[in-house]
């Protein structure tokens, strides 16, 4: 039988908070693991009363939802935390934001609504904006057109088990091109599935169908995540929590 540490079990989770944060600037080069470490330390610095798992190696209750790849910026990363003392979500947001590096911004914090289901179930799609410095927007527009016209676009994707061919086309719900300052911009709505299709895979697909080769490395930003609806837009995944309200209205502790 597994041994248990002496003493009482840790206090239970009494409140779940759902958080949207952004990674910007230099910190687009942070990996998921880097961000997770930074977040855990910031929660401690901000003295957020985290709930912990039981056992010899107690861990704070934090669940991460699919992270943007290393090198991509994001305005819509989501995480859920469990607290052992009820807190005002806005106070937690502000304290956490102040404790994180400047390039990580805590944008929203809401209490998980009763009976609203899991956050993961409300996210199946990413909205991307990819800046391609030095590329002619018309050239991009032609490539996007060719891509959308194709039924299948096979690209080689690097996975843990080496290179593997995937079809990048079906995951892309919509895509378009626009012009930015000194760059072309690729806008796209991409379903999250297995295998994951990332901006790099779509760029590889554009190279495959239209021989598109941007002269400089791309800068991708995930602008939003959520559930894709019939109209081709994604719904705010924190929406249901906002309308459901908090489960019980005891006094909030100060952070």
């Amino acid at each position: 039988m597994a041994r248990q540490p002496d003493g009482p079990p840790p206090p239970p989770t009494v409140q779940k908070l759902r958080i949207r944060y952004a990674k910007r600037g230099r910190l687009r080069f942070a990996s998921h693991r880097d961000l997770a470490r930074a977040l855990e330390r910031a929660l401690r610095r901000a003295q957020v009363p985290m709930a912990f798992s039981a056992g010899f190696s107690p861990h704070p209750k934090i669940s991460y939802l699919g992270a943007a790849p290393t090198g991509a910026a994001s305005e819509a990363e989501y995480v859920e935390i469990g607290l052992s003392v009820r807190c005002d979500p806005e106070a937690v947001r502000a304290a956490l934001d102040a404790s994180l590096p400047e390039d990580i911004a805590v944008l929203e914090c809401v209490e998980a609504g009763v009976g609203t289901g899991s956050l993961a179930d409300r996210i199946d799609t990413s909205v991307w904006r990819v800046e391609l410095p030095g590329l002619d927007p018309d050239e991009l527009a032609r490539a996007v057109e060719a891509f959308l016209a194709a039924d299948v676009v096979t690209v080689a994707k690097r996975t843990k088990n080496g290179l593997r061919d995937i079809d990048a086309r079906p995951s892309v719900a919509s895509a378009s091109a626009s012009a930015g300052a000194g760059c072309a911009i690729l806008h796209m709505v991409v379903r999250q599935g297995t295998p994951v299709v990332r901006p790099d895979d779509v760029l590889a697909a554009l190279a495959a169908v239209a021989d598109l080769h941007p002269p400089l490395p791309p800068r991708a930003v995930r602008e939003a995540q959520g559930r894709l609806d019939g109209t081709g837009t994604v719904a705010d995944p924190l929406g249901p929590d906002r309308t459901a309200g908090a489960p019980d209205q005891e006094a909030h502790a100060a952070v």
Partner: protein
Amino acid sequence: MSSVGSYPGPVMTAELRTTTGESLYPRLEPLLAQIQKPIQYVGGELNAQVKPWDAAAVHWALMYPDAYEVGLPNQGLMILYEVLNERSDALAERTYAVWPDLAALMREQGVPQFTVDGHRAVADFDVLGVSFATELGYTNLLEALDLAGVPLHAVDRDESHPVVVAGGHAAFNPEPVADFVDCAVLGDGEQVVGDITDVVKAWKAEDRPGGREELLARLARVDGVYVPRFYAMSYGDDGAIASVTPTRADVPAKVGKRTVMDLDEWPYPKQPLVPLAESVHERMSVEIFRGCTRGCRFCQAGMITRPVRERTITGIGSMVDAGLKATGYEEVGLLSLSSADHSEIGQLAKELADRYEGTNTGLSLPSTRVDAFNVTLANELSRNGRRSGLTFAPEGGSERIRRVINKTVSKEDLVRTVTTAYANGWTQVKLYFMCGLPTETDEDVLEIADLAVEVIRAGREASGRKDIRCTVSIGGFVPKPHTPFQWASQAGPEMIDNRLRLLRQKINEDRKIGRSIGLRYHDGKPGAIEGLLSRGDRRVGRVIERVWREGGRFDGWSEHFSYERWVAAAAEELAPFGVDLDWYTTRERTEHEILPWDHLDSGLDKEWLWEDWQAAISEDEVADCRWTPCYDCGVCPTNGTEIQIGPTGRSLLPLTVV
């Protein structure tokens, strides 16, 4: 030193820019998208600082010549970074060794070696301070200089180039890198970096009179600063040094080390750096004392950092408090060369655990002597945090060899201590040993197996569990300057590899026990090169340069280290001098041989070191001068220092709840 210039080597083509202190980040960013772990190059760590360039009179680039993940947690560099940045007339930024993937792109695109704070070119700084914890970082220094566009050889630099200053423990014998550094600093850095700043500032303010030569001459007169170019070496027919002669009348014949007294006055780092990237130490550290007088004869750190200077219990308490608030770490390492020896360690551990009750904050002692361990202490350390494994370092397998190295502990005490740990719920114990110690025989090493088997047998009985584990970790011994073993013959890689093979066989003889014992070791080859670099003289510089030109980098990493490249370079570059790799490593030195570091003074009397070396051969022990009378090692009278230890009788008050 021109003969080496003909080898095909990397060429740095970065153009020198006209404005200094400008950020290179816009040029670096496109490269970061194409490499591994880009986060290590972007800076912006918690508590990092970027000061305006023009506001500072003296600009320091501080380098740790290894990968970011190893260099960032380095306490020495973190301390100097803060001490310098607290001065209004100075600015300090950090730079680390760049991995080959980025280095190749930097050469291709003409982006020079940069600091991670302001992404400023290293060549723009006045001083490049490099901290050498190990000699295996030397090729990374050459790589950084080349990437920076700074001439490799000190003699080729002019007053527009940074002054390259080596520090850290390896700087106690900087001769192998004497051609590449302008200065070496001996001892504690906290005060001397200020003195260097003052000298550079005054020289710049006077419009650089006398050029680089004059600046270096002024630096040579700063206590603790050694300027190799002002000392001429001559060699005898036997290959040994015949003389070391100062070439200027105004530099000291012997350079002494710096010692910071009263650590409570230097509570650094106050704002420890916290990386986003994973680093080798995921905790904050507080140095609870500096120096060690246990007298382990293999230990260079214990010899060159004397005397013992304790931080007080209250001083430690406030550093832990401030550091945790500034970092959000959940573990605090109480750092020193032998932390359980602090005069108030029991009370300190208990009172810290009381303070952080219920906060999941763990305490750890990075190294614990078997004879200083007790379960009460260990329980206090792990009371609030995660219970990690315990590590002990008996270093020698047999009682005999432990007397030789002066780390005496009986087998019974060792087994009892480890068994007690198992009985109290620890399931993992790690034991550190060395192989290739002076006078060592196969039997001394094979006793490690007996010890491990005994530990598991007794531990299973005491704990009533079968799943306890013992990891035996072994490194090859490398004799170091300024220790009693500085004269010793280093065991060759074949001997070390053979003894480790015999040990593995013996551990596996009884599978029922052997499966609970892990054996971790590295082959003996890197140790031979570390030995060459540790006890080398100025002639070894050619070997380092040759290895770097042929692609040598990151020699502390097994996937980058090439023994063959080092051996071939040593053979060719040393042959003209009539010496070779073995001459520097496996050769035993005689009492009166002039050693390459004899003109650098750690405070230890050479006569005392020799006596202690003879005592080692006779298996005689020497006690710790903290608790027994002084045995005249020489440090305190030479440096005007004294042992500073408690107990203070003070205690930690509970922190007020905010």
